[in-house]
Each structure stands twice: as structure tokens, then as C-alpha cells.
């Protein structure tokens, strides 16, 4: 479980996340909405542990451990993983090697087989992120997460730059990573399959396309550094599409107030 309590975060001296509370239970996937610059990526980076995102107050707990001041790699080792939107190029390091690193340098890891699943075999001997298109970067990030197999997966705009054909692939892989595939032929009832899900997801999306492939338990809107509401993600998306973020946030706030939140 991921628990965030009253988190305040500064970036370059500016308060960018204000009083964030969040809870993702095992098996849950949350969708994070919010206009550009609202702090969505900052929240993910803070959870991942990037030190430039300075926690000025509040706590982050993962699996019951206070990770607020834990270095990035220790969080990764605990099972937090992230698909970055703009990962850096690392010259001379091959994607193949990086995938091995992600798996904890597992000797018997079949990199090729994993890469086939994301249609990425041809890229394995390219330098990490060097000259990759937006869609290729997404697939590279997913491949790394597949090798890493973390318990909490954060996806920063998994749809951006992905063409229609690959969108289905990306969606299905994310569903697979989050253990959301339903196996109708399994001896286990579907309800049990769902209950046995442990993987947690936190997904930033603007378009909501990813929701065609995965089931999200909750949607949240981050607006100006404040988590403004928790709602059914489809409702939120509809609201944003119809009346825009500002109105949407106001409406929901009022709604919440009326309901005694």
C-alpha cells in the first residue's frame, strides 16, 4: 500500500504540491488528471524519490515503511517503478543491458522474449533512448518495467506520442503489468482473480485512452498543486471534457462540500 500524508513539496524553492493525501491499496489503480503544470509529474517524481523534489512536510509510506527520505534506488528495490515521460539518453549503454539491469541482473532473463511482447526486439542494441520517437520511448519504458516487475507502477502519460496501432499494445501491456488481465479459461472465478490482484498503479493521463484497457479504481484531479477530488475516473474525464479543469474542480469542490466532505 502507498500512503501519502499531508505532503508538501518544493521544487527550486517554489511550493508545487500542497497538502497531498493519497492512498493506493494493493490491487488498486488510480488515474491522475490535471492541467499542464499542475504538479502531476512532480508527484510521481516525489514518490520515486528524485531529490530535487524537496519534501518540506508530510510523509510517504510504502508497504508500511516511511520512505520519505529514502534514496531512489532503495525505493526501486522495495518495488516502486516508473515509466518516465522524457527519460534521458545514455550513450553507449544498450537497451538490452538496461533491461538486464532492471531485472536485477538476472542471468537467465530472456530479454528477447520480453522485447517481443512490446514489439521492441529491433531496438535492443540501440543506445538507451537515443533517437527514439515518443512511442518508442513508451515501449522502452514498459519493457524496463516488465523486467523490473515492481509492485507500484507509475506511468507518466503512457499514451503520449503513441500511434493508434501501438496504443492497443501499450494498453494491454500496462493491463498485464498491473495484473489486470482476466483469464476466462482459468479455473479461478473472475471475482477471485480480481481479488488476488496486488499490483498498484498510478497513471497520469490527459486523454483517458488508457482507460479503454485498464480498470481504474479511482480518479483524482491535481489542480495547482492541490489534489482536488476523488471520483470515478470516467466521471472526471467527462467533466473535464465538457467544462474544463477549472470549472470541473470548482463543481466537484462544491459537490464535496455539499456532501459534507
Amino acid at each position, binding site marked *: 500500500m502507498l500512503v501519502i500524508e499531508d505532503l508538501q513539496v518544493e521544487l527550486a524553492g517554489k511550493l508545487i504540491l500542497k497538502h497531498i493525501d493519497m492512498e493506493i491499496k494493493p490491487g488498486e489503480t488510480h488515474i491522475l488528471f490535471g492541467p499542464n503544470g499542475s504538479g502531476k509529474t512532480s508527484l510521481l517524481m516525489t514518490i520515486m*524519490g*528524485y531529490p530535487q523534489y524537496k519534501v518540506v512536510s508530510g510523509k510517504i509510506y510504502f508497504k508500511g515503511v516511511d520512505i520519505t527520505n529514502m534514496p531512489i*534506488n532503495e525505493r526501486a528495490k522495495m518495488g516502486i517503478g516508473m515509466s*518516465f515521460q522524457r*527519460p534521458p539518453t*545514455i*550513450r*553507449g*549503454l544498450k537497451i538490452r543491458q538496461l533491461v538486464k*539491469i532492471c531485472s536485477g541482473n538476472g542471468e537467465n532473463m530472456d530479454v528477447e522474449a520480453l522485447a517481443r511482447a512490446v514489439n521492441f526486439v529491433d531496438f535492443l542494441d540501440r543506445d538507451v533512448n537515443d533517437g527514439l520517437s515518443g512511442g518508442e520511448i513508451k515501449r522502452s519504458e514498459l519493457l524496463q518495467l516488465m523486467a523490473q516487475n515492481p509492485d507500484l507502477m507509475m506511468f507518466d502519460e503512457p499514451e503520449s506520442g503513441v500511434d493508434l496501432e501501438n496504443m492497443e499494445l501499450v494498453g494491454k501491456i500496462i493491463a498485464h503489468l498491473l495484473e489486470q488481465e482476466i483469464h476466462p479459461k482459468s479455473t479461478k472465478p473472475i471475482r477471485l482473480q480480481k481479488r488476488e490482484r496486488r499490483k498498484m498503479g498510478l497513471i497520469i493521463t490527459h486523454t483517458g485512452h488508457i482507460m479503454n484497457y485498464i480498470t481504474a479504481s479511482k480518479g483524482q484531479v491535481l489542480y495547482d498543486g492541490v489534489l482536488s477530488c476523488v471520483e470515478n475516473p470516467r466521471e472526471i474525464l467527462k467533466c473535464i471534457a465538457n467544462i474544463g479543469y477549472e470549472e470541473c474542480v470548482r463543481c466537484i469542490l462544491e459537490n464535496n462540500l455539499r456532501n459534507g466532505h
Partner: protein
Amino acid sequence: MHIREQFKERALKAVDKKAAIGEDIDLSQYDKEAPPPKPLTDEELCALPQIERELLAMAGIDVTEKERGGTFFQKNVGVVHCDVKQEGIEVIPLKVALEKYDWIWDYYWKLVPVDADKYTAAAELELHDGYVIRALPGSKTIYPIQACMFMEKDNLQQNVHNIIIAEEDSELHIITGCATAHTTKRGAHIGISEFFVKKNAKLSFTMIHNWAENMHVRPRSAAQVEEGGLFLNNYICMKPVKSLQMYPTTHLVGPDAVARFYTILVGSPGSIYDVGGRIVLNYPGNRAEIVSRAISNGGTIIARGHLIGKSPDIKAHLECRGLILNGGIIHAIPELEGHVDGVEMSHEAAVGKIAQEEIFYLMARGLNEDEATATIVRGFLNVDIPGLPPQLKAEIDKAIEESDKDVM
């Protein structure tokens, strides 16, 4: 007057001539002589002390000669082992060649002027030995030939002269290592190398240097590549040295000749490396590439590169990347010189540090900060060298792995 006498005469006039660049070394402080070493058989070579074998291995020399087509091994002033296991390849000590073969005079001091500076002069006047490696027309080496210049005697000035000839349509791969014994603290190494790549021949020359902290090293090399020929020159030095200065020139002297230089340098504290490459493109279809990676770990690295385009329809690129890790200086001096219309020449140079962003990214994949840094450095030094046989690629990788320990 015999041609050798003429060389000597010219050399005598240059004994005090300072080099165009690099620290001037007072050569009088070094011993020029040492007892001739005892020749070693194949078995004796394998029975060298562990510590010495390891040193040689780090310079790419495998005493078992497995996956090697031949071996030349010089210790101090003389040859200890010289054999060839492959047909079509000749490996001859230079002094033997000078005595026995007339053809050697078509090559000896042909590309490097004997009176270029005091170092070339010393190599003529106090020549110890060196090798001639020659691939006969049409022959192809399966395994690389290995050559080693080993310095065991302290305070020695080792003077060697090497001639490498790839005859028409031949393919020759050479790995050469220079190393000093653990007992050797100071000394100087002067190495003349002249490369001849004939029509449609392919020569790869990979040099790995392991010097000592108080060694001055002055290689003086030049190459010429004829029509359709390829010269691939790799230089790796990741160990400390007092000073190393070289700026070899390659002349492309026929259409479609190609030269590619790859240099990997790690500059240790107190060391000065002034290393460059110059390629002259004289004919249409000539291609040249100079790629260097330099890491300063507290040392000073001057990375030079000079491309000279003298014909239309040539292409040349120079790439120099430097990483300052633990202090030190990296000075990149890329030069492009186009003499006619229709040349296509470019360069890119960058000197910087490891981006934090890259370290964090790898940490997010589970590596700790040191592992992430090491991985990025290894990647930085990992240059793709097309056309290099796998054994030599493995030797370069090994040298890079080895350097990790020093850099971190």
C-alpha cells in the same frame, strides 16, 4: 652512400630538435642500453611469472597465443619471442629485416621524417629493435597478430621502430600492447610506426598502453592508405603516465581509401596526455572519421583532431567527447580544413560531466549511485567500432572494465 648512412646523418642534425608540441624531455637522463634479454620459447612464454602475464594480458597480449595469429615480444632492447602461426603473414624483427631484405628500404623512414624531432632522431641513432609485420597479397588473418613492447629495466629509454604492411587485397589485424614491469618506475619510450595499406587492403591496429607513472612516451607514427584500402586505428590508454604526446598523420593516397581513428583515454592525476590524429583526404571517395572519448580523472588530456580535405567528394567527421569526473583538464582541439569545393566535413566536441538525470534514471531501475555512475562511464567509453574482430573488441571491453576500478 648507403641510405642508412643518410638517415643517420639527418638524424644527427636533429638530436636536439624539440618536438612541435608536448613537453620537451631531456633524453640524456636515461640509459640507452640494457643486457639483451633471453629469448623465450612458446612454453617459456606461458611460464612467465603470473604478475608479468597479468600485465601483458592487460595490454592485450595473450601468452598462450590462443586466438592469435602470431606474436612479437620485445623486452627492453631486444626480441624475446617472434613467431607466426599463420600462412601469408610475416613477423620479422626490424633489425633482421634491415640486414636481410632490400625491400625494407621502400618503407623504413618513408612516412615519418627521421629528422622530425629529437625522438625520431634517437630512434635512428640508438635503435633497439621493433617489428615488421606484413600480410602478403590476398592473405587474410583469421586471428590478430599480437605485438608487445615491454619495459622491465628502470630508467631505460626504449627506442623502437615498427613497420606494418598490408599488401594488396590482404586483411591484417594487429593488437599491440606496451607495458612496464612493476619494478619500472621511470623511463622513456620512443616508438616509430609506419603503416602501409595497399590497394583494397584492410588493416586494423589496436594499441593498448599500460605505462608507469613516471614514463614519458613519444610515439611517432604515420600511415598511407592506397585506393580502396581501409585503415582502422584504435588507441586505448587508461593508465597513468608522466607524459604522452603523439599526433600521427594518415594520408589517403588513392580513391575510396578510408581511415578511422578511435581513441579512448582516461587521464589519471599527474598525467598529461596530448593525443590526436590527423587525416589528409586527397582523393574522391575518401572517408575519414576520428572519434575520441576522454575521461579526466584528475589528469590533463589534450584531444586533438585534424581533418584535411583536398579533394571534392570526400567526407570526414570528427567527434570528441570529454567527461571530467574528478577534476583535471580536458582540452579538445578539433580542426577542419577544406581546400576545395565539394568537401563535406564536420565535427562535434563536448566536454562536460555526468548528467545527474542519467544517474537518477538508473537508480530508479535499482542501481545505487556508484553503480549507476560506473554504468554511465562504461557506456561513455563504449564506442562502436565497425570492422573490429571480436577478439579485439573483447580486449577493448576488458581494458574498459579494468579501468572502472581506477576511475571510481
